[in-house]
Each structure stands twice: as C-alpha cells, then as structure tokens.
C-alpha cells in the first residue's frame, strides 16, 4: 500500500505523543477502538480556565494511517475551544492525509477519540462546577 507523504511524515515524526494525568480535572481522556480490530487510540486534552485546549497528547496502536490521523487530531484541537474542536470532521482528516477508502475508518476513529476526550472533560468539569456551587 502506498502511503501519502503526510501520513509518512506523521508516522515518522508523530506530534504530541504521550500521556496527561487522567485524574486532573482539566484533562479529558478518550480511548476508542479495540485491539482485536487492530486499532486503539487514546487522545487526551488539557483545557485551561478560558475553555481553550492548550495541550493535547495521543497514543495509538494501529496502522500508519491510524497513527497519522490521531497525530493530526492533536495538532488540530490545540488552540481551539471545546466547541470549536467538536466541529472537526473525519472527512477533514481524510482530505488532509489523502487516506484511501480502506483507511477511512482510521479518520472516523480519530474523530471519535476527539469527541470522547471532549465528553470526558465536559462530564468532569460539569461535575466539578456542581461541586463548586454546592460548596459555595
């Protein structure tokens, strides 16, 4: 299979590999996929007090396209607000990385990972806000 130059670049020089503390209230964690399907993505975001994603990290088990999709996703969510990040679509990833049809599921998984991380952050911060209110 021929990979696009961008996929190869992300595979060789993945951006933002690593992990954030998943217990941190400012951190949202999304883990999607399954080992038996051949891909698992973990995507994490740290949101600052202004609601802007200031840090994003990923770890991915999967093919080169899956690694590239998640690497690209971390680049794209950084600097965006939570709402802006929700607007990232898998088709944008397909286009940017020139993914072939058999690899479209990698981009879907990356979009799912972004949403899962955002959902996790929201449910955490929602709970935190409620707690703060109760304490006040």
């Amino acid at each position, binding site marked *: *299979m021929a*990979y696009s130059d961008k996929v190869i670049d992300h*595979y060789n020089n*993945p951006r933002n*590999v690593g*992990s954030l503390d998943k217990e941190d209230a400012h951190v949202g964690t999304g*883990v*999607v*996929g*399954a*080992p*038996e*399907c*051949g*891909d*698992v*993505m*973990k995507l994490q975001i740290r949101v600052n007090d202004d609601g802007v994603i200031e840090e994003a990290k*990923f*770890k*991915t*088990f*999967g*093919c*080169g396209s*899956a*690694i590239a999709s998640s690497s690209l996703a971390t680049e794209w969510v950084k600097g965006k607000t939570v709402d802006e990040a929700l607007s990232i679509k898998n088709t944008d990833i397909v286009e940017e990385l020139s993914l072939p049809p*058999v690899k479209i*599921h990698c981009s*879907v*998984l990356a979009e*799912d990972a972004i949403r899962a991380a955002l959902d996790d952050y929201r449910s955490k911060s929602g709970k935190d806000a409620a707690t703060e209110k109760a304490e006040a």
Partner: protein
Amino acid sequence: MSKLIYLDNNATTPLDPRVLEAMMPYLTHEYGNAASRSHQFGWAAEEAVAQAREHVAALIGASSKEIIFTSGATESDNIAIKGAVEMLAHKGRHVITVKTEHKAILDTCKYLETKGLADVTYLDVAPNGLITVDQVRDAIRDDTIIISVMHANNEIGVLQPIKEIGALAREKNIWFHTDATQSIGKIPFDVDDLNVDIASLSGHKLYGPKGVGVLYARRRKPRIRLAPVLHGGGHERGMRSGTLNVPGIVGIGEACRLAKLDLAKDMAHAKELRDAFEKRMVEALDHVEINGSAEHRLPNTTNLSFSCVEGESLIMGIPDIAVSSGSACTSASLEPSYVLRALGVGDEHAHSSIRFSFGRFTTKEETERAAEQLISTVTRLREMSPLYEMVKEGIDLSTINWTAH
C-alpha cells in the same frame, strides 16, 4: 551491498543463478516442443524434460514415472483433490483436511462441497498449530477417500506428523496427499519414508522459476489415478494436458538437483540465522511470542507476535526489510490471518504478528541488521502504544470493555 533485506523466502525465493544458467538454452535456441517426435528440436526438449524428471524424483525418493509437471503447487493441489474425488466417486465422497491448509486446498474443498461432490472434515489444530494422528483416525468414515494434510505450514512453519498420518491412511486404504510446497528443499522429504501417495510442490519456493510445479502420484501400492482438471493432448500420463513448459521444467529440475546437493548446508545455514534472530529478539524485547510449535517446525521460519504493536505499522517502520504480516491488513481484506486464528491466537496478537523466513542467500550481516532495525521500531511504536502503557501499568487488556468498531 543492497540496502534491502529479503526475509520472505516462504513467499518466494530468488532464482538461483545456476538454475538460470541451466534454463537459458531452453529460453533461447532449444525451443522445441517436447511432444515433437519427428525432429531434433523435439528430441532435445524431450531429453531435457526426462533429465529434469529424474532430478525431481531423486530429491523426493520417487520414480521419474511418478512425476507430473504442472504450473505450480496450486494446480497440483487442485488436481490432487478434484482428481481423487472424481476418480473415487464410486467409492465414497468424504475428504479429511485441516483448517490451516493453504487456500489452494481449502478453497478447492469448499468448491467441491458447494457443488455437492464431497463432504469435507476440516480438523482443528492445537495452539501449537499441530494435529494428531488420533484426530485423523477419529474423523475417518467408511466413505473417506482422501486425506490431505500439509507437511509444513507456510505462515508458521510447523511440521505436521505426516509420516504417522500416511501410515494410518495406508492401513485404512485411503489415499494420502500432502502439500509439501514449503518443506521440499528445506528439509528431507522422501515419499516412501513419509508414506505419501500424492504430493504437491512448487518451483519458485526452492530457488527455481515461477509458473512450474510438480504433482507426485504413486504408481504402486496404491496406484494413484487422478481425473484431469485440464483436458487436451493427454500429456503427463493423461493427468495434465498442455504443452510442457520446457524451460520451467528444466529450471525446477535443476533446482531440485541443487536442493538435494545443498540440503544439509542450506538447512544448517537457515537454522543458524533464524535461531540467532529469534534469540536477539527475545533478549532485546519483552512480550514477544513465537507462534506455533518451536520444536516441530522448519529451520528457516519464525512467526513472532510483538504484543501491543500493530503489524502494518511495524512493517511501515522497517521499509528496507521484506517480511510478511500475520494480519492481512496490507491486503484489502483487513482480516487477521486465518492460520493464527485457527491456533487460537487472539485477534490482537494476530494483528501484531510478522513472519520472517530465511533462505540460501540471506547473510548473517543482513540478519543482524534486520534484528536491530526491528528492535528500534518495536521500541518506538510501543512508546506510542496505549496498550503497552496499560500492560506496563499491570492492566489485563482482556478485562477492558473495548468499543469494537
């Protein structure tokens, strides 16, 4: 020195220069048809084919009259199974084979089933990839006509107990076929010693050319007659019509002659490289597993699972090394290997498996270079693997409720 390292000798082998040399006259000025009985061109071709037949026969302990030239092992497998089912239709319709056979056997059997021509039993293998003689014995019915069990498996290299299965088949008066494509030329193979009635082999797996293979069919005790798949001029004792591929046949003949000559040397060479490679992998990396029996297998093959690393990404990281992925993700199907599945290897491990097959022309330097490149790529990919992180944290991956997609 080429930058590329070829560790995919079970897929195909390079043509031995000595084989090419033997073939050259028949690709150029000796262009006769071996069936032309009326002139020198035909006689020369016929003589070359006769000599090739002797070389093939000598390698496998057969008589030259028992050698039928085909286009390759796939065709040989087709003739063996379809030919036996048709020829013995009056006697029965039951076929016994194994789930890890090559597709040339499995798809032929499925075809016969869908056409209503045969009932097929597909034996399960143990986690080490092997079947037992007792499994075969238990599967035999009154109407069993042929048992087909491969000698060496192409993906994991394990060796089935064909000598014992052959003895059982003989005792029960059932024909025994073995697809010996991966074993002939790599380890000793003698049709009498192994109780084989019908065997398939291929030229390009033993440093011969592609497009030529052999079907061995025993002439006495039992006398094997197979209905042809190709009809025509009645070549090859009527079992395989079609003008003989003289250069290809000369090539496979010379390849067999060399295989017999170099067998001990080739075996020792492949085993030394394979064992050194395996040892280095297991020492340098944790969570590496050998798929299939480490004891009963070819000397040149190792199939390794690199836990928590996906096979396609691993292959992408070693662009200079030619290997084969245990998962078929590199093809269009995105399915993990059916062979590894039959062993009970979990899909996540099947996705992490790579086959390395060494050969006559693999060097020690290449083997060492490949090992180091592989170690650094596995290490790098594990650093970005969420699964490896979990394993290191002591989480059992099988307890997680994954979102299958």
